[in-house]
Each structure stands twice: as structure tokens, then as C-alpha cells.
């Protein structure tokens, strides 16, 4: 289960099969609107932990010129005048709706890779699409309708031969209302694709950050089209194998087979392919335990805590057995980076979701709803080892995991148990936990 091993593992992406990138438009805001239709058509922002700053905006809020990261106190005085509505982050709601969205999307794919709380790669079956490009667009539109009908949030679907291009197609779908949320690059004249690529800066590409972008610009590579035309080997020498892959993917060669660990401001993903399929629930328990702890260590290292944990697993379409892409998000009772709590939550979330007889080839644990860890006393450390409720088997578990995955596979992060004596998150404008708390169900008037 080393990183190198994961890279060698057979990826789930068969060459030539279309890949879709499905993501939810303004996910947090869209979630708020599901149970509060009065927010439809209004300017809505969702605030970060402790109601600090804007993390999500409706189209109407964007039109007001409100940018992501704007501190709420700067906007608040004008809110009434603008008709602007603010909501605190409701991670319980977002996590639950995310799991539903991912499950619906997964039903349409030969394989699925949940990439973040609101986006997923999806492999469309190659055989089905050999016939007509029109069929690809049709399936993409069906996915969009299914998510809208089942969960009530709008998604955009980009389809292309590689993940990088699928992301790019999704970008086009989002910016062109006339496409009705669906863009398949194969349906567009190549000249048109090239024209758009020559206008979008390289930093608009998946995986190209501002720093890399600046270095590319210095070499005269400004647009996506410029990067597409670059020599992959030269790019590898000057930059990295990662950017070389981006160049190849821009040219239609799929070479990013699976998610590896990624982190951004909003979530941490720990996801791997297995060297041998996992078929038994007990084995998956161990996988979840290892991944949760690796993720917990990373959370701690970054000084962050998570409020939502998402687990995913997937079979390969080549493995023969049943196809299955279980996914579940669970809100954590309070934000944490405690490896034991996260391990318990991850194992419990996956239990009962595996298809008997299915051979799972990959799994992931994702943390979202991140907040800063506040350095504090050791109370939680004492709590954890004092309660003993179900902690008894953790020693065995760790031992098993070490034996299976190697000594280095597991470790309790030293910062993982630090916690403030009391924690309370400010959520002044929070909507109810509509789908996860019996006492907070949405009210329907009769």
C-alpha cells in the first residue's frame, strides 16, 4: 500500500472510454435551497466556520460582486439593502446530500471516483458509446436530470477522453448557459475547442496553480492551447511528471488513472487503488482504519479538524463481479482530527454498504468542513483513553493493520489528540440539520 505501489496498480480508466466530470453548481448554496425554496433566485452566501468569511455564493451573490473569502463583517451592513441572505456552513446537510448525489451519479458509470464533496469523475462504458457521440450527450443530460430529480441540486457534466479534458469540458458547460449544463468535447468542432483553449489561461486548468502558471508564462506558455502544444518531455524536465501528464491528457492521452492524495482549502482526500481486490467486510474495515488514520495525521499536520467524513469504495469494471460504488458521508459530532474517532467513524460509515461478492479495487476517505485546530490542553487525550467504549479493540486493529500493510502504514499523529478544553463553533445563521436530526426535519405546511 505504498505510494509507489498505488501508482503501479491497475487504474480503472480504460483508454478510449469517455470520462465525465460531474459537479454541483454552487454546492453549499444549492443544498440550502433544497429545503428552503424561498432562497431560489435570491443572493445567498454560505459562510465558513465561525461565520468568518464567504465560502460559497449563489449566481446572484456573484453578480453583486461578492468574492469568495470576503469577510462577512464587510458585507453584513449591506446585506439587507442587497437582499442578501447568509447561511452558516451546515456540514451535516452538505455531507448527507453529497452522499446522495454521489450515489445517483455512480449508477451511471462503469467506475466512479469521488473527487471532492461536490464533484466526481465517472467512467462511461466504452461499448455503449462506440455507436454515437449523441448518446454520450444524452447520458450526460440524463445524469443531470437524475440528480436534479433525486436530490434537487443542479449539476454540470463535462465529458472528454481524459480527466483533464473532462474538467475543461465541465468548465465550458458552466460558462455557457446555452449548453444546459452539459458539454462533451467530442460534440464540438475541434477548431472551436482550440479557439476556447487559446483564450483560457493555463491556470484555468486542473492541477495548474498560480506558481506553476507564472513559471509557464515566463516560457511563453500562457493559454491552455500553448500548453497543449508544448513538448511533454521538455515539460517533464523543467517541471514535473505531473505537469507532463497534464500535457498528455490535453492531447487526449489518459494518464491520470486514479486519485491520489490531494488537499486543498476545503477538503483532504486520502484515496488509493489496492494491489489486490478487497472482498470481505473485515478487510475493508482495515482499509478504512488505515486511510482514516493517514488522513487524521495529515489533518493534524496541517493544523486542521474535520466536521464531515466521507468514505467511498469502488469496484473495477474489469474484475468481473458486481459493480458497486458505495459512498457515505457522516457528520462528526464536533470537529476533530482525533485518529481514533475518525477511524471509528470511517469503519462504521462503510459497514453494511458493501455489495456481497463484489471485488473492491479502490477506496477513499475524505475529510471536509475543515476548520483550524486550536492548540489546547490534553483533555481529549485523557478522555479518549478513559472512556474505553469500544476502544478495546483498537490495539488489535492497529496490530492487524501493521501486519497487513507494514509498520509504516499506520501511526497516531502526535498532534492528533490536542484539543481545546471546550469547543464551540459559531453557526449563527445555520439552517436545520434537515436530513440527519430527527428533531430538525424540514417542516411542510398542511
Amino acid at each position: 500500500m505504498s505510494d509507489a505501489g498505488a501508482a503501479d496498480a491497475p487504474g480503472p480508466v480504460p483508454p478510449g472510454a469517455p470520462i465525465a466530470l460531474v459537479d454541483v453548481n454552487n454546492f453549499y448554496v444549492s443544498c440550502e435551497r433544497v429545503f428552503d425554496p424561498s432562497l431560489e433566485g435570491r443572493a445567498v452566501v454560505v459562510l465558513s466556520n465561525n461565520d468568518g468569511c464567504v465560502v460559497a455564493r449563489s449566481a446572484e451573490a456573484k453578480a453583486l460582486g461578492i468574492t469568495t473569502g470576503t469577510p462577512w463583517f464587510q458585507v453584513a451592513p449591506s446585506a439587507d439593502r442587497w437582499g442578501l441572505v447568509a447561511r452558516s456552513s451546515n456540514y451535516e446537510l452538505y455531507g448527507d446530500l453529497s452522499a446522495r448525489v454521489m450515489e445517483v451519479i455512480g449508477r451511471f458509470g462503469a467506475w466512479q471516483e469521488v473527487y471532492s464533496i461536490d464533484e466526481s469523475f465517472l467512467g462511461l462504458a466504452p461499448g455503449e458509446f462506440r455507436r454515437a457521440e449523441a448518446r454520450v450527450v444524452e447520458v450526460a443530460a440524463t445524469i443531470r436530470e437524475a440528480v436534479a430529480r433525486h436530490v434537487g441540486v443542479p449539476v454540470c457534466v463535462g465529458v472528454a477522453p481524459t480527466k483533464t479534458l473532462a474538467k475543461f469540458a465541465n468548465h465550458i458547460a458552466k460558462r455557457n448557459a446555452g449548453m444546459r449544463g452539459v458539454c462533451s468535447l467530442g460534440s464540438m468542432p475541434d477548431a472551436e475547442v482550440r479557439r476556447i483553449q487559446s483564450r483560457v489561461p493555463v491556470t484555468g486548468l486542473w492541477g495548474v496553480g498560480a506558481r506553476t502558471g507564472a513559471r509557464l508564462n515566463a516560457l511563453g506558455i500562457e493559454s491552455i492551447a500553448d500548453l497543449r502544444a508544448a513538448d511533454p518531455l521538455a515539460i517533464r524536465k523543467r517541471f514535473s511528471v505531473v505537469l507532463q501528464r497534464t500535457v498528455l491528457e490535453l492531447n487526449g492521452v489518459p494518464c491520470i488513472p486514479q486519485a491520489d492524495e490531494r488537499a486543498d482549502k476545503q477538503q483532504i482526500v486520502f484515496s488509493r487503488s489496492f494491489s489486490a481486490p478487497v472482498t470481505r467486510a473485515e478487510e475493508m474495515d482495515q482499509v478504512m482504519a488505515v486511510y482514516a488514520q493517514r488522513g487524521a495525521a495529515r489533518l493534524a499536520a496541517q493544523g486542521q479538524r474535520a466536521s464531515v467524513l466521507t468514505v467511498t469504495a469502488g469496484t473495477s469494471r474489469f474484475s468481473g463481479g458486481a459493480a458497486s460504488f458505495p459512498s457515505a458521508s457522516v457528520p462528526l459530532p464536533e470537529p476533530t482530527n482525533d485518529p481514533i474517532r475518525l477511524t471509528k467513524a470511517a469503519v462504521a460509515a462503510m459497514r453494511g454498504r458493501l455489495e456481497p461478492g463484489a471485488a473492491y479495487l479502490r477506496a477513499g476517505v475524505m475529510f471536509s468542513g475543515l476548520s483550524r485546530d486550536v492548540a489546547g490542553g490534553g483533555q481529549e487525550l485523557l478522555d479518549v483513553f478513559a472512556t474505553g467504549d469500544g476502544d478495546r479493540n483498537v490495539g488489535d486493529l492497529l496490530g492487524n493493520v501493521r501486519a497487513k500493510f507494514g509498520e509504516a502504514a499506520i501511526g497516531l499523529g502526535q498532534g492528533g489528540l490536542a484539543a481545546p478544553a471546550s469547543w464551540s463553533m459559531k453557526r449563527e445563521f445555520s439552517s436545520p440539520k434537515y436530513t440527519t436530526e430527527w428533531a430538525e426535519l424540514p417542516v411542510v405546511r398542511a
Partner: protein
Amino acid sequence: MDPAPRSAPEPDGGGAPAEASGFPSPARDYFNGGIDLNRHLIRDRTCTFIMRVAGNAMAAAGIADGDELIVDRSLVPRDGSVVVAVLDGELVVRRLRLGGRGASLETDDGARPTELTELADLTVWGVATRCLHRV
């Protein structure tokens, strides 16, 4: 090195009741788990939501104030379906009547129905499939 070899015997019955230490229970082979309400009441968990009813306008349909409704978003509403609809930015439970070009949303207490002259004006949030009523 594998702590859980594939040849290891499967643990007995995942959710089965604890074994008596003396004789094995004669019911052992017949236990397949208890009744799971989720399985019986929820057709598809991705599109099923639970809502709490406020008001008695649908009492004749067996839906009382404080009851919980199981709502399936993916079902196609038909004439006579009890639906959760969006009216003036609010979620309401009504009986849907479809006829001609338009639709109407009726309460079961004889109050004036909401007439929608165009189907496009109708926003059905979901179809109510069950009502959980405390007796």
C-alpha cells in the same frame, strides 16, 4: 503476514443474537436479521426524505399535525397523488389534481384549492408515500 487469511472461517452470522454458551440455539439457522424499516419504507435512499407536518388541512387524508411524511422525490406525481409542492417559496403538502392544461393543489378540508393555470407554474418537490402517525 496476512492477519486475516482468506481461508479463515467466516465469523458466524453477522447480526445474529449472541450464542448461548451451552447448546446452540435451534433458531440460529433461521435468523436473517430483524425487520428493517428502512428497507420496507424507503424504496431508494438517495431520493427519500422525511418531513414534519405542520397543520391539519390534510387530516382527511390521514395526515395530522406533527406527523412525519416519507417523501420520494423521484416518483412521478399523478392525479390524486399527495405531494409536497412549492407554493410562494414554502413547502406545503397537498393533493394534486391534474386536468386539462393546468393543475390544482387541494387540501382535504374543503378549503379553496390553489389553481395553477399552466403546468409550468407547478413545482412538485416530491411525492408523499407514507405518513408516520403516532397513535
